[in-house]
């Protein structure tokens, strides 16, 4: 029983990291219809900025997160204006893939050049590092923090998209952008804001998830497949879907690793195949 609880806890925390990073990608794919293969690269930039802010500028952890999120958004603005704006919703998939994978390679090269090929740590404050005794086992304190971050992110996004004026405009622009345009909604601004939101979430995930997915130049490609899998299993654009998919896959992966580590990611992909077979549009996907 204790073991099952332990695996469950590990699985949930791993799933939450996947969720925080993947939700930005899910928003891009579901709402903007852009398969943004550079999403991992933005998460990585967030991680690098946080690491730089803490280790070289002496910032605290909370400040580093803010610096990372805002810094990454600022870096992404010229990319949005020059490149991404041209591929929202309209262009075919191949153009999107080539463009975004190209951006990814450029970012990997730059990261390697500027920061070098070694791992960059994001030191945790004392309150978040080390083990935490929760009665039946010790768990890394940081994992509790990650779970809390995941829950808050999910709630805040749900409120933003379902309950606010911005959310209404966003959904209108997504469902019928021509009509939204003619009703006076500045769709261009809505898209830019949503892009910033997606990038910011990626950067946030890159920082808080750095303990499990360490920051190095190939981060941008190494974990991209996992993020894409989460989005397609959950259904692009769905917050509940991404959350459910992350937790399910996190649990499948963790259970597999505990019971039969030599099988590698077999259980992760088995779960993906079963879910994709039963729900071809993803768990909470909508027909477009």
């Amino acid at each position: 029983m204790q073991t099952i609880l332990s695996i469950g806890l590990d699985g949930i925390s791993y799933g939450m990291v996947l969720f925080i990073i993947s939700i930005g990608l899910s928003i891009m794919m579901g709402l903007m219809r852009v398969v943004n293969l550079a999403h991992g690269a933005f998460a990585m930039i967030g991680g690098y900025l946080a690491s730089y802010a803490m280790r070289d500028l002496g910032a605290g952890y909370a400040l580093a997160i803010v610096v990372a999120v805002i810094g990454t958004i600022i870096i992404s603005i010229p990319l949005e204006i020059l490149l991404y704006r041209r591929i929202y919703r309209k262009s075919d998939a191949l153009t999107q893939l080539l463009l975004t994978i190209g951006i990814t390679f450029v970012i990997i090269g730059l990261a390697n050049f500027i920061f070098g090929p070694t791992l960059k740590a994001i030191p945790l404050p004392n309150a978040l590092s080390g083990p935490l005794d929760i009665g039946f086992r010790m768990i890394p304190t940081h994992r509790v923090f990650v779970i809390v971050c995941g829950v808050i992110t999910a709630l805040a996004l749900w409120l933003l998209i379902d309950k606010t004026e911005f959310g209404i405009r966003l959904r209108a622009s997504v469902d019928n952008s021509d009509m939204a345009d003619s009703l006076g909604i500045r769709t261009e601004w809505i898209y830019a804001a949503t892009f910033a939101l997606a990038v910011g979430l990626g950067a946030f995930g890159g920082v808080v998830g750095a303990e499990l997915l360490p920051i190095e130049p190939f981060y941008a490609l190494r974990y991209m497949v996992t993020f894409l899998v989460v989005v397609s299993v959950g259904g692009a654009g769905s917050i509940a879907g991404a959350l459910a998919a992350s937790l399910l896959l996190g649990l499948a992966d963790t259970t597999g690793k505990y019971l039969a580590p030599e099988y590698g990611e077999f259980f992760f992909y088995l779960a993906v195949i079963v879910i994709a077979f039963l729900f071809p549009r993803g768990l909470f996907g909508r027909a477009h």
Partner: protein
Amino acid sequence: MKKSATLLSAAVAIGLMTGGASADVIKVGVIGTMSGPYALFGKNFKMGIDAWVAEHGNKVGNHTVEFIYRDEESPNPAKSKALAQELLVKDKVQYLAGVYFTPDAMAIAPLLDESKTPLVVMNAATSAIVQKSPYIVRTSFTMWQNTVPAAKVAKTNGSKKVAIAVSDYGPGLDAEAAFKKTFEAEGGQVVEAIRMPLNTTDFGPIMQRIKDSGADTIFTFLPAGPPTLGFVKAYIDNGLKAGGVKLMSTGDVVTEPDLPTIGDAGIGILSTYHYSVSHDSPENKAFLAQIVKDGGKLDEVTMTSVAAYDGARVIYKMIEATDGKRDPAKAVDAVKGMKWVSPRGPVSIDPDTRHIRQNVYLRTVEKVDGKLINKEIKTFEAQPDWALSSK
């Protein structure tokens, strides 16, 4: 005007052709991870070779030595084989060197007999590599070489039940076999042997499994690179360190560039390895000073730089013995039994296995002058590759 330009270029072309024929340049093709996640170690190949050339010049007798680098990038046997072929056929190299990954070395081995080319392996650490061709000499280490002392230390430190966790590929399986055999021969018990996929990043479940096995000590091997840090952190943060479970590893898990990232929590981790950057000897000080003089960073030095430095020494000796001619048997014979004092300590090339014999040190992570280092606390002298030699 046009005519004179044609004449001039013809003259230049002839000049180049004759120049190429008369100058005696011996080319050495170095295959290493120059880009990608393991780029640090390829960079170290170059740092080590550059340090040797800076100290000893680029001439052996009246032969000029030229090193040509190619990017191995990742464990990719097909690519490495193609690179070796290109170096042999197009660049006409007389020696091959480098190679970070075992599968890549295995792919290159069959080309050596055909092309009569010696290969000096500067990293790839699976024992069997030297048996794949009589023209292979290795100046790095093997898993057996570093792991057997680790098992002995575990036993003398009072470990009774050990859980082994290794990366699931050649060197990992070597490490597992070496530890299990030695530790059980000494009367210890291995209660769990976990093989982790190379791309594992979340080690929480592995730690839980180790904890459930009731082991008092973990022995681990992961190739130096991104995953090692995650393993050490998971060990600390899941409460195993606080719970008194000891961690024993080969030095790959605590390479010096990773130590600042592991942080103070890593203090006290034991490892056995053939080279510590902090090794206290005049040879090592001179070696590190040379690297810094060439513009290298001290924080980036790893074991591959010293293996490359010694590898360059071996290649120079081969060139000297053959007087620049292509004669692999003579070249390899010349370095069998070769002895010298390396920055890592006294070493020799075992004449039977063509693998390097060297001291293996037991080290503990310590903080000295505000910097984390692997401090050597015990020496196992002149260790052979225990898989190939029995003493």
